[in-house]
């Protein structure tokens, strides 16, 4: 943990910074929540929240915008983790989308994401009126994230306005806000993908099995391989399913999450694979494919 006598390693420095941010938000905001998306970044963020308040439990709920198309395993993992850490779990599903039976197969990925994810998130924020929501985004994820603040201000309509963002100096965060305004907080801003994996490894943080290579039924779809997770997948696709040894670099809606061929069954092997293949993780996530700068557009619309 300590390099020389009194110097912290980079991971301990990052941990300290994240804990500082999480505590600061809890001290200054009335109604905070943590957006828990079940992936590896969320897992690290949850772990850090536990650390920040131990021996108490983190004094805020975990929220999950459920698009209804997440991997079954993610849902099971979500329930189990919430129980283990003893935090309240708030699950929100866009009722209108549910009623219309929005499906990425039928309606396309853009419409599905827009209704079930972006719109669902907006509705959830309107309903619960959280004034601070933790998210697990990192600045190294995507080019347009590099300038994202740790406290990212959103207006009453949850929209992000590049001009309304505040300069962040030292570790002093300005959390003052008007009623109705809120912030997204990114305590993992300064972590890289490698940091996340190393920390998971060092701290033995639980993550869903989907990250590890295993024989899984997959089909070719939209230029990548996706897994057959249930029989809502159209029949004509399902019949093409082949068992292949694959894993997922990122977790989301199963029809929109590309599987990669892999033999990595342990954390060190995953890290090794990541270091050697050099394909950034969002490639497996179909929503970012369109054009560079698309994340920024999504953000202005209220996407996390």
């Amino acid at each position, binding site marked *: 943990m300590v390099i020389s006598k009194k110097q912290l390693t980079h991971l301990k420095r*990052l941990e300290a910074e994240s804990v500082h941010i999480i505590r600061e938000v809890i001290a200054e905001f009335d109604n905070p929540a943590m957006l828990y998306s079940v992936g590896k970044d969320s897992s690290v963020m949850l772990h850090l929240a536990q650390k920040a*308040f131990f021996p108490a439990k983190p004094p805020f709920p975990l929220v999950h915008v459920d698009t209804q198309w997440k991997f079954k395993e993610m849902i099971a993992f979500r329930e189990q983790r919430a129980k283990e850490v003893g935090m309240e779990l708030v699950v929100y599903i866009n009722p209108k989308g549910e009623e219309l039976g929005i499906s990425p197969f039928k309606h396309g990925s853009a419409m599905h994401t827009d209704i079930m994810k972006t719109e669902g998130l907006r509705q959830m924020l309107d309903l619960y009126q959280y004034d601070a929501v933790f998210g697990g985004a990192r600045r190294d994820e995507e080019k347009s994230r590099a300038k994202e603040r740790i406290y990212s201000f959103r207006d009453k309509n949850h929209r992000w306005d590049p001009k309304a963002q505040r300069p962040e100096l030292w570790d002093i965060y300005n959390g003052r806000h008007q009623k109705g305004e809120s912030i997204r907080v990114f305590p993992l801003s300064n972590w890289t993908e490698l940091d996340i994996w190393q920390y998971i490894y060092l701290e033995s943080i639980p993550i869903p099995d989907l990250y590890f290579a295993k024989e899984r039924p997959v089909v070719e779809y939209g230029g990548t391989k996706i897994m057959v997770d249930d029989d809502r997948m159209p029949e004509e696709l399902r019949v093409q399913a082949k068992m292949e040894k694959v894993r997922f670099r990122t977790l989301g809606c199963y029809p929109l999450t590309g599987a990669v061929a892999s033999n990595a069954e342990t954390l060190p092997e995953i890290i090794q694979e990541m270091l050697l293949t050099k394909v950034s993780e969002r*490639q497996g996530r179909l929503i970012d494919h369109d054009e560079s700068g698309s994340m920024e557009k999504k953000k202005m619309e209220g996407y996390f």
Partner: protein
Amino acid sequence: MAIEQNNLMESDIEAYLLQHENKELLRFITCGSVDDGKSTLIGRLLHDSKMIFEDQLAAINKDSKKHGTTGDEVDLALLVDGLQSEREQGITIDVAYRYFATDKRKFIIADTPGHEQYTRNMATGASTADLAIILIDARYGVQTQTRRHSYITSLLGIKHILVAVNKMDLVDYSEQRFNEIKAQYKNFSKDIGIVNPVFVPVSALTGDNVVNRSDKMPWNTDVPLMQQLDTIPLEDTVNLDNFRLPVQYVNRPHLDFRGFCGTISAGSIKVGDRVTVLPSKKTSTVKQVIQPAVGEHDMAIDEAFAPMAITLTLKDEVDISRGDMIVKSDDMPQVSDQLEVMLVWMGEVPLRVGVDVLIKRATNVVSGQFSRIDHKVDVNSLEKVAATELQLNEIGQCQLSLKQLISFDAYADIKATGSFIVIDKYTHATLAAGMIQRQSNSAVNATSLREYSAFEKDLNALVRRHFPEWGCRSIDELLSK
């Protein structure tokens, strides 16, 4: 080679991971004027340290054709290009953070592009940096902006300065030119408090002397830029002498546990240390030092130090809340409500004296106003000039009058307890970055404008030695103000 790409990764991943668990963290800022090659240099560092993924390179290749300036070659500068709106509208209002690592260190770069907003962006990026790379175009040498950038890094207390003389390829890799620039720089840098700057000749475009030693500059016997970044000692970037814990949050899961959480600003703390809580001056003894943990088994440690985020429990029931500061009883900070400060103004509306503002310093938020602008600093000539207001991107020395006493340190001694932000009471915008220099003369004058007898000096020393918890100031310090 110092690059994160060694055989271990392939042959023995567990050994590799072990090696990479114990890296140091170095945060630095890059400063340069438009076209000095900042983006190219950062792109080069990321590219040569293999932090660029294939798909990102592919995207840049596409972008190079659309926006690039390097013709058909991949424009490394596009790697670090920022927000879309900025690209399209040509506005730059931000700091971008980039990441790369070597076998020894993880680096966080604060990349501050910009023109008019430069001072504000630079101050923001510099506030968290331990080192600054100052870029100079070898063709043009030291410019007005070079002085301005250097002044801001010094104002923000950055101890390590690396002067990268870029575009050496355009001056025939001339040693003489490099030495001229070195002399130009040294000519002014001492006056603004920069000691021992390190000079490196590079070509960001060709990669010469960035990561690998350049055979075009055999006269240069120093190590390349990347190796400088890897080896510059970091011990002096954290004050480990004077313990300060601004209380951030009081953790009370049940009646038997009352923990005071916070990030250590400076110094270290052990179980059994006598502590004083400011401003109440109540004292107690440290019962437990708790590190971030998820279980009982690994939470207690014997000693913690800056910049750890910790929780303390105390032997006595002491009333402590967020905004208080816990310090060691034999090493107290100063306490005052009248401060002399330096401000970097960031608000759209200029600073005027006598207007109520909020001051957030570490974890306390106090109301106050600026009672006087002593002078502003012309960032180009570095001269002090009289001022009645401070505008966006202006820097000035001011007198700050708070409605409550706070305990503080000079920014030069402890950054975290000597820095603050100014917040607009109504719009809540962040108006300025502030650095405490000392207690105001006006506050000191009342007590110090007199001669002290030898007896009074002895008494003062006695009180300070035996009753540190009284927070008594030393007479010498009063007189030196």
